[in-house]
């Protein structure tokens, strides 16, 4: 059995990773090095992560079902969802780029939501198996989160690059804000989640 910092009465500063005493007479409320508030674990971690994951799950549906992009060609508007855009690439034969967008826009948010829910459930039900793998899974979730913004950047770029006034224009459509909402909620869920809770359970 190995000792944790918590068991030894020590807390790691969230911001600068300095070890400071957090129990007994010498306990500190803020980090002497960077001034951040000291907590043994991130405060309200489980509640906040649950709220943000569920918000992301709710936003995931309008983000994928509503159209995300409006292509106006010679006065005839054409709305397309994320999936339409991916199918277009596969029909064109651009399998590589289709796979990149499929991964970044659909698989990554879905993977993040499912894995965060599994990790949170495993804390609630105290599943003490696969701890190392769950921690690695969480690090993967932290890393891939930002890449989902890809589709939004592409739409903003297409909007400015394909702007031939009377012939063809491209603009964002109603799903775009929901999609950004999914990305932001899952990123914040990963930020507020404290992986040490897995090991405490």
């Amino acid at each position: 059995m190995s000792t944790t910092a918590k068991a030894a009465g020590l807390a790691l500063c969230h911001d600068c990773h300095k070890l400071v005493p957090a129990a007994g007479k010498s306990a500190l409320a803020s980090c002497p090095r960077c001034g951040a508030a000291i907590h043994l674990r991130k405060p309200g971690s489980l509640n906040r992560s649950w709220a943000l994951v569920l918000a992301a799950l709710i936003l995931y549906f309008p983000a994928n079902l509503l159209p995300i992009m409006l292509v106006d060609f010679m006065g005839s508007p054409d709305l397309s969802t994320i999936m339409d855009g991916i199918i277009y690439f596969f029909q064109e034969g651009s399998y590589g780029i289709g796979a990149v967008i499929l991964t970044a826009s659909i698989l990554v948010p879905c993977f993040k939501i499912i894995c965060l829910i599994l990790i949170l459930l495993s804390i609630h039900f105290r599943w003490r198996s696969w701890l190392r793998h769950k921690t690695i899974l969480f690090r993967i979730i932290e890393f891939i989160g930002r890449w989902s913004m890809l589709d939004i950047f592409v739409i903003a770029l297409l909007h400015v690059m394909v702007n031939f006034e009377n012939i063809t224009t491209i603009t964002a459509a109603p799903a775009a804000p929901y999609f950004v909402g999914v990305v932001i909620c899952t990123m914040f869920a990963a930020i507020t989640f404290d992986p040490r809770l897995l090991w405490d359970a």
Partner: protein
Amino acid sequence: MHCETSNIGHQTMLPQTTDFDLDQVIACPDCDLLLENIPVATGEKLCCPRCGETLKEPKTNSINRTLALSLTGLLLYPFAIFMPIMTLNTMGLENSGNIFDGVFMTWISGYRFIAVIVALTSVIFPLIKLLLLFLVSLSLKFKRYHNSLHLLMRSYIHLDEWGMLEVFMLGILVTIIKMHHMAAIHYDAGLFCFVGLLAAALGSSIMMDKEEFWKLIENGGVSY
């Protein structure tokens, strides 16, 4: 890269008190395992034996490299954001745009939330991150320990994952692949400046040795 693991946590019981020297121990940020603080040479990496998290990875010449790369990024920044990145030519019509226009036109089209998020993640946060790294590494280089240095470092740590230049770069590539059937694409100077900016921004954050920076700030006589 050689990965050295410290196994003291598995073999010895550490005392259950707060009495031991805080410089002699470190804790894993991901699993809270308490470990002996062993020195790590540059080019080596200390990993947590329990969860595999990288605990220490000293960088060579960290301050100078961070300073040089963040300065390079700052010099390229205005050109990357305000110069046209490419020109599209179709049916005799020409159209070019830069990154700032991308944000501005999204705002005009009514999707203001999207415009704000794109502006923050691809224009504002990358600039603030470069400025913070530049200021911190410049102060450390010339040993000016200003007493707000810790706030600059904390701001950088919190902003770190919200600057998304590399995702934006992938967005530019996807846009090019999407359009190259329909229009002739001419690549402008802004694109090359953006690639340079991305390289400098990534390089500066990789080169920054957070542990070394924090140690210097702490020992530089920061007062509270």
